[in-house]
């Protein structure tokens, strides 16, 4: 099997992909806002609004609040960008899915740290809600277990190519796992039912106090995060597809998420955690049944 790469093979091409991913992620967020607005009968901002926001924040006056834990306030932003660049690298090189899971889990620390570092009560509540919604990460682990069960590998590249070789996308054979990952993406989407950490009663939640250049960097991380999560879904459940197909599938996913966000009210923290926990239990039961069946009949791996 030849070495998998999402696009291109050398460092220059990865850097190009990085730039494209940032802009694509920000445009997807713009699209997300536009769709929500249109469903709610508002004109909404232009699709490139998030790109403009990021550029605007980049040139605004930037400083550190007097009450902040200063080193942490700055470092946590750089770590956020670093994590999602690393995650994009993992996807690009088709590396281990468990490393991607680790980076995704570490994003929780970023949310927590960003919220705690400023000293503001709004950001702090966002941070505490982030800890509280830790149950959201468990379905991702169950997803990884199920994917391994079906493919017998944790390499993203091999999983993606495996589906093309057998000509059957995993979304058909492991549908609950696909829903699980979809819920993960939904829980990270802005204005979604699970977005309790940046609810409007907390202004902007955990990143309320990060402004100017810091916000621009966090926006870049957010754009990368969106691209990484959407492309992970496509690679794990559809397979290694050409770049234009990948773009179309990511768009379809984003539009569906926007529809859910526009038509679903934001849950309370208690409801969000309850739904996530119940879904985790369902997926764990599914994974256990799949494991027992595979052990008994040897039909998967």
């Amino acid at each position, binding site marked *: 099997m030849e070495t998998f790469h999402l696009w291109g093979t050398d460092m220059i091409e990865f850097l190009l992909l990085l730039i494209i991913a940032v802009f694509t992620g920000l445009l997807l967020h713009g699209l997300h806002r536009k769709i929500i607005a249109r469903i709610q009968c508002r004109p909404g901002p232009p699709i490139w609004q998030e790109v403009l926001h990021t550029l605007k924040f980049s040139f605004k006056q930037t400083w550190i609040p*007097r*009450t*902040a*834990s*200063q*080193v*942490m*306030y700055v*470092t946590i932003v750089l*770590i956020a960008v670093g994590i999602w660049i*690393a995650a994009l690298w993992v996807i690009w090189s088709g590396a*281990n899915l*468990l*490393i991607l*899971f*680790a*980076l995704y*889990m*570490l994003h*929780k*620390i970023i949310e*927590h*740290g960003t919220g*705690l*570092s*400023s*000293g*503001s*009560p709004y950001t*702090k509540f966002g*941070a*505490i809600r982030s*800890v*509280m919604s*830790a*149950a959201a*990460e*468990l379905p991702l*682990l169950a997803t990884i277990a199920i994917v391994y069960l079906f493919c017998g*590998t*944790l*390499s993203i590249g091999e999983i993606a190519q495996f589906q093309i070789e057998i000509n059957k996308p995993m979304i058909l054979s492991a549908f609950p796992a696909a829903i699980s990952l979809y819920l993960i993406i939904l829980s990270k989407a802005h204005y979604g039912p699970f977005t309790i950490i940046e609810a409007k009663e907390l202004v902007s939640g955990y990143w309320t106090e990060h402004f100017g250049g810091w916000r621009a960097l966090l926006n870049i991380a957010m754009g990368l995060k969106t691209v990484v999560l959407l492309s992970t879904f496509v690679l794990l459940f559809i397979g290694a597809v050409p770049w234009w197909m990948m773009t179309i599938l990511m768009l379809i996913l984003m539009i569906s998420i926007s529809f859910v966000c526009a038509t679903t009210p934001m849950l309370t923290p208690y409801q969000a955690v309850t739904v996530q*926990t119940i879904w*985790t239990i369902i997926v764990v039961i599914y994974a256990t049944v799949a494991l027992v069946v595979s052990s008994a009949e040897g039909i998967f791996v």
Partner: protein
Amino acid sequence: MFEQIHEQTLLLLPFGDIVHYLSGYTVILAAFAVMFLLLALVSLPERPIDIVFGTDGYYIKEIPVDIMKFQRFMALACGISTIGAITTGDIFNFTLFAIFIGILNIGIVAAVENKHVLDAAFSYGLVVMMATIPLFAGAATIIATCGTLSIGELVDTDATPLIAKLLILIGVFGEGMAPFYIGKTEITRAPGAPYILMIHVSSLLLFLRTIEIFLTV
């Protein structure tokens, strides 16, 4: 599975029959632990703002230096324990580090003079203490059935009972993961951002390391 997760072992550090190691996976976890350890070392805490109820006023709280120093010491100890849990190649040492992390998490907020935080820390402490039972039971089951606690040798024998792995997993959940983390959510209300963050960092990294152990031995 071991080869898939580890890809290649980057560092081996033997202490007798106990071998510490870093793989492609654990080196990322260790790097994060070191990063947040340094952050706790060099960062000063934030000064939390509280709103005066019923007015437009607010006040800024200062964390007393003695409490800050105590929190920092506990956070550094917690960070070092986390690195230990990530790099150790011995199941018993792993369980010891896991329990140590649980206790130090309480230690980080123990000096905070806030009734809600201390109540939550007490509740969390009870869960942490109870979680030591499945952790040690898991390690005891492994030594009884396999005759070794070395992760490297357990990988070769491929005879670790599933029940032992599940016991260790339950124990680590008890040290601060879902569904036992609600008490921990409350204790993160305490001031001292760089130190409080270590509570979250240590739990997540411990969980990620447990996944690796669960899948490999």
